[in-house]
């Protein structure tokens, strides 16, 4: 028998070799795991809370209540290049204006006399063109139709525009130009919670479900940031639409809160035991702005049509003042949406139409606490901190108030007065603090010892004030942060509570004096806000707590934390 000389490893050897190679591959894969399967970047980024207030340079002199922008929009808007790429017939003159299911479009429906282009519409009769309102409820489809030039107009909330703008501006022709605010969401969006969540701060460690990249995402994360809760400490569950968020919340008991729309936010607490509304845009009534944008190339070629659209929508608001016209508009809207008139009427409270005066405040008043610039910057801040946008678009690259300014000069809508300002009756802190606040924002202003002046200057060694200096240089930015929150919660009442440290406790200082000082400081914050941002003084109630409530009960001697002012937002008293 011939023995074949054995060449190569034995079966066992082969197995070992195979396992060795496998182990090497696995080891290499593990070593390079961050390269091969990176963890990605998502909403878990840590937000620098101090940055929240520093979204604009401090402005110490702004004392006037109305300060209009001085520049011409055309100087800041990106120029339009190339040949216009939208579909347009010079004889037909029909503007394609998609809208979603939202009561805020009632004025344009009223002005247009229904959805289809009509020779009897205000647009045709007064301004010489027709409007084709199309129901495109999916914002992605609406955006794509806009980008493709199929529609001339894009509907959206300001926060959606922040997300859409960078991509749309890759082509200067489809850059969005925002000309008009149609409404403020006013009860249409809201947050429903389960169990014993009383305030936004209680959401820490809990699970929240909402539609990603939608007003819901802005709403909840803005609240979390304002309440000092790191968004990464909350478990976020995402759905594609608000409708699914509500369904998920009802179906899954492990979810503690959902952000959704009317009517779901009101139906859920009625139908599901143990749930309640935490807050809605009925209180945060200047947080979510509905606007429309036109393609830059269209706006450049047809400024008269843009002006007509803006004016026609204001005309529609005038028309709605009449009860019979309003009923007609409900009927038209119901037909356009394929709904019942009753269903449309039931949505009437979801939004507050913004008339000419309110648009002027939004676009032109640089001091308005909830104006376009501040809203845009606030959205940009929230989304950038969440890692959702990289290179944000500046507000003045999309905001175009040229049509508004022309209408202002002509005085066409001088009769429309600002109706969005809530009026308040003076209330005591004791009365409003009986309920728990929706959220509490803690701010720190470095007061000069024993002084209650927020704008206290620095002092030299002899104790003399140094002109043009500030003891707390960031005070304007701090106030700006409060003003934005208070401005967003225009209809809510706000408690300003001052606290002092306890460094002089038991050293002969009387508590009454400390309490008075903390109360004076809270009052000073209130006065500063009222003066610069023109808030109703009765919106605020002021309280001084002295050293009674340390910031952290487990660390009562942390005096730097203890010297603070807490700004709490309370739901308006039910009427």
């Amino acid at each position, binding site marked *: 028998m011939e023995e074949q000389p054995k060449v190569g490893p034995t079966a066992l050897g082969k197995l070992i070799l195979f396992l060795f190679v496998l182990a090497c591959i696995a080891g290499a894969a593990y070593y390079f795991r961050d390269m091969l*399967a990176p963890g990605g970047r998502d909403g878990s980024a840590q937000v620098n809370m101090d940055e929240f207030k520093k979204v604009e340079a401090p402005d110490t002199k702004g004392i006037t209540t109305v300060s209009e922008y001085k520049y011409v929009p055309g100087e800041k808007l990106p120029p339009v290049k190339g040949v216009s790429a939208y579909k347009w017939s010079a004889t037909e003159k029909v503007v394609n204006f998609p809208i979603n299911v939202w009561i805020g479009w009632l004025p344009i429906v009223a002005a247009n006399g229904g959805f289809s282009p009509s020779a009897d519409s205000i647009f045709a009769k007064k301004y010489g063109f027709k409007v084709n309102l199309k129901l495109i409820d999916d914002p992605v489809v609406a955006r794509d139709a806009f980008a493709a030039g199929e529609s001339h107009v894009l509907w959206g909330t300001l926060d959606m525009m922040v997300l859409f703008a*960078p991509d749309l501006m890759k082509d200067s022709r489809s850059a969005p130009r925002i000309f008009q605010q149609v409404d403020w969401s006013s009860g249409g969006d809201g947050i429903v919670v389960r169990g014993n969540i009383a305030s936004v701060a209680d959401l820490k460690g809990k699970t929240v479900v909402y539609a990603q990249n939608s007003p819901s995402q802005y709403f909840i994360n803005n609240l979390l940031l304002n309440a000092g809760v790191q968004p990464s400490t909350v478990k*976020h569950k995402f759905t594609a639409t608000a409708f699914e968020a509500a369904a*998920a919340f009802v179906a899954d008991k492990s979810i503690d809160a959902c952000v959704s729309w009317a009517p779901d936010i009101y139906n859920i607490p009625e139908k599901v035991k143990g749930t309640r509304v935490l807050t809605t845009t009925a209180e945060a009534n200047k947080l979510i702005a509905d606007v429309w944008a036109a393609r830059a190339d269209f706006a450049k070629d047809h400024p008269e049509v843009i002006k007509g659209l803006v004016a026609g929508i204001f005309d529609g608001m005038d028309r709605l003042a009449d009860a019979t016209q309003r009923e007609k508009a409900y009927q038209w809207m119901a037909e356009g949406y394929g709904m019942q008139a009753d269903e449309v009427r039931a949505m009437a409270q979801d939004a507050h139409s913004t008339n000419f005066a309110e648009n002027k405040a939004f676009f032109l008043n640089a001091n308005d606490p909830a104006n376009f610039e501040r809203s845009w910057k606030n959205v940009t801040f929230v989304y950038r901190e969440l890692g959702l946008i990289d290179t944000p678009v500046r507000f003045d690259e999309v905001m175009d108030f040229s049509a508004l300014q022309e209408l202002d000069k002509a005085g066409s809508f001088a009769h429309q007065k600002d109706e969005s300002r809530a009026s308040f009756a003076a209330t005591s802190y004791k009365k409003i603090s009986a309920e728990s606040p929706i959220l509490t924002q803690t701010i720190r202003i470095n007061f000069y010892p024993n002084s209650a002046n927020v704008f206290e200057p620095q002092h030299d060694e002899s104790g003399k004030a140094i002109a043009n200096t500030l003891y707390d240089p960031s005070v304007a930015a701090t106030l700006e942060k409060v003003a934005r929150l208070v401005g967003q919660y225009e209809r809510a009442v706000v408690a300003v509570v001052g606290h002092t440290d306890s460094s002089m406790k038991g050293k002969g200082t009387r508590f009454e004096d400390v309490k008075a000082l903390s109360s004076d400081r809270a009052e000073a914050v209130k006065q500063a806000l009222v003066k610069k941002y023109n808030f109703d003084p009765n919106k605020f109630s002021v309280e001084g707590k002295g050293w009674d409530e340390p910031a952290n009960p487990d660390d009562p001697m942390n005096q730097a934390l203890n010297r603070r002012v807490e700004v709490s937002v309370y739901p308006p008293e039910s009427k």
Partner: protein
Amino acid sequence: MTTAAPAPAGGPAPPRPGPPASAHTGFLRIREELPAWKAWLLGLLPVLALLALWVFVTTGTAEERVISPTILPSPAEVVASFPLLWFDRALTRNLAVSFWRVVEGFALGVLISFPLGVLMGAFTKVKGAFTPLTVFGAYLPIPTLVPLTLSLFGTGELQKVMFLALAFSIYMVPLFVAAVDAVDDTYLKTAYTLGASKGQAVGRVLLPISWPEIWQAMRLGFGVGWSYILLAEMVDVGRGLGGIIITSQRRGPREHIYLVLVIIVLVAFVTDKLWAAVGRFLFPYREAKR
């Protein structure tokens, strides 16, 4: 590339006239034998043509292009956004998540549709009972079932797998039925002559003969999951390729939408080749039949 061809039905065919001479001449020849490399090359041509068209409509500055970059970015832009997708959006992890969901949904779908399909193929009464349901299923707009699965299975992994399983089942039951249906009556008759029982007729004749077709049905069916992954991942978006697409539609970059589409196509291509290879290994005689 092979596709399912229905087994020839009926008895012996009448003698056919031979093919005309023209059938085997010229550029296009009927049932021509083609070397593998030629088939590959031919398959590559339309892909290249499509790519050339893509380049053509997306050349120049944003305003000069036939199709605006806000709708369709150029191939170069799509490729350039790959690192962002790979690192910032964790492509591999999301791909793995989606792939696993498809596998789970598929397994569950087969578990439901295979016995049903075989029983329907074998027994006319079962077929009669379930045919209306499968017909409804084929016409059903599946997206409308998302909220239903949501309330039944919650928002987690279970809902996604169940939704995919449902979609798989609806698609595969008719294919399984057809596979069993296609078994020639001669085989059954022969089995009966040899004294086969009812169970033997199903287990030893219908099933074994239809295995290759059933395999083929599963191969086709597996691809369907990828077309539904977007719907399945609409809830609890965040992980998975569907989530990447939904997010990119809302806040960009547009490039990632097309990149994910390309990746899904590549994955589909590789898995399909795997199915075919395993099929050749399991049923070598199927190829020989040709």
